[in-house]
């Protein structure tokens, strides 16, 4: 038997707590850099001013350790567990406890209701977060926490296209989603696109795509080319910062693909707003 590495559940709780509360006050550095760059390329004077306000907002949030946005999101946690890791304690409970403590530590807003049919009660501590598990080789445990705002999530879409709709089908889906999202979803956006898999897998791919670092290339040259073309097309829509008009609608488009059924062509488009909150750690 190979040697197992033991990680205490309490260590996972602590990590999730800090990732969640910190991501709500510190915007992703790559996203901030993208807005700083956009501030010099944005054609609308009001758009430049709005980008300036967003950057000032990040500064206030970071200095005062106050949430950058009052919607502190639906916590989404991606967990990659090395197959040589043994968790001492209950892993699922440890993650939810981390979100609970992070909500308290960060003075976050309780934004989840227990029952979607009656819309009550508010769980008060942003649990239960959505958790995606994956098993990978090795003895590390990777945690990524996203605080996903409701406004941009509401404007995300899933299309069950036909195989012959081809690349243009993807283009139209992305353009339509971003155009309909407009000012409601708080642009400038990062756009996560899932292509392939099943109905459920495709949406997960789109969410996962949001975690990629802005400026990084897609390992698949065809997808990389499409990402850059789409970003250019989206910035011609005129939506602009906060939807008040301009040339900065999306600062990145990221595509994640998965093998697909011969009869199917699902495309999911997940929108990330300017309160871009995500942090990860390797334990």
């Amino acid at each position: 038997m190979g040697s197992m590495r033991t990680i205490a559940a309490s260590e996972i709780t602590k990590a999730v707590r800090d990732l969640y509360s910190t991501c709500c006050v510190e915007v992703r550095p790559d996203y901030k850099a993208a807005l700083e760059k956009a501030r010099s390329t944005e054609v609308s004077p009001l758009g430049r001013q709005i980008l300036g306000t967003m950057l000032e907002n990040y500064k206030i949030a970071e200095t005062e350790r106050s949430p950058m946005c009052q919607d502190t999101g639906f916590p989404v946690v991606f967990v990659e567990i090395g197959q040589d890791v043994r968790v001492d304690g209950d892993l699922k409970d440890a993650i939810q406890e981390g979100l609970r403590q992070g909500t308290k530590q960060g003075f976050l807003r309780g934004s989840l209701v227990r029952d979607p049919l009656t819309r009550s009660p508010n769980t008060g501590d942003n649990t239960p977060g959505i958790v995606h598990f994956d098993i990978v080789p090795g003895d590390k445990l990777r945690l990524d926490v996203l605080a996903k705002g409701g406004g941009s999530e509401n404007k995300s879409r899933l299309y069950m296209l036909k195989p012959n709709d081809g690349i243009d089908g993807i283009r139209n889906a992305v353009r339509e989603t971003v155009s309909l999202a407009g000012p409601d979803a708080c642009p400038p956006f990062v756009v996560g696109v899932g292509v392939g898999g099943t109905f459920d897998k495709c949406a997960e791919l789109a969410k996962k795509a949001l975690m990629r670092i802005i400026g990084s290339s897609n390992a698949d040259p065809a997808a990389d080319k499409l990402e850059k073309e789409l970003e250019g097309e989206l910035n011609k829509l005129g939506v602009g910062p906060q939807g008040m008009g301009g040339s900065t609608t999306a600062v990145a488009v990221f595509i994640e693909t998965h093998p697909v059924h011969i009869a199917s062509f699902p495309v999911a488009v997940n929108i990330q707003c300017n309160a871009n909150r995500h942090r990860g750690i390797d334990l």
Partner: protein
Amino acid sequence: MIRREGDFVRVTPPLTDEEVLELRAGDPVRITGTLLTGRDAAHRKLNDLIKANQPLPVDLKGQIIYYVGPTPPKPGQVIGSAGPTTGGRMDSTTELLLRAGLKGAIGKGERGAATREAFQKHRAVYFGAIGGSGAYLAKRITAQEIIAYPELGTEAIRRLTVEDFPVVVINDAHGADFYEEGRKKYAVT
């Protein structure tokens, strides 16, 4: 009260019909004075009362409602982060409040055609604030008080005192839409 001053229009509620008509889509506005708050749950409750001919817990006449659900304040803070939520979610519950005398709403995002018409018909305006900038906007809020539905927590109706609160007129009482104008102006075809 409204007053044009330099690049801004200064607004202090309550507003009259005549004052509302002076506001134009795209006007940068600074609000000083008091705002009411309310989002989905409070709107549902107010609509139920109006439909049942019951008195409201708050006088809407001439007032501006801010669609916001703030984060809890940290020690020493007046209010936590307090940016706008999506206005379109209040579309189905807005007209009755306008009938009760509401003169303005602050949110982010587009309103439906029927709601835009209702703003026009009742001589009211929809202002847009910058979504996602809750820490920045909280700095312009100097006091808060819960005045109805404390059981709703973040969704309770509050009275906020604001100073130079920055918004832009999106839908004016003449039917113009600043989001639409902005997009048209900068779209590359």
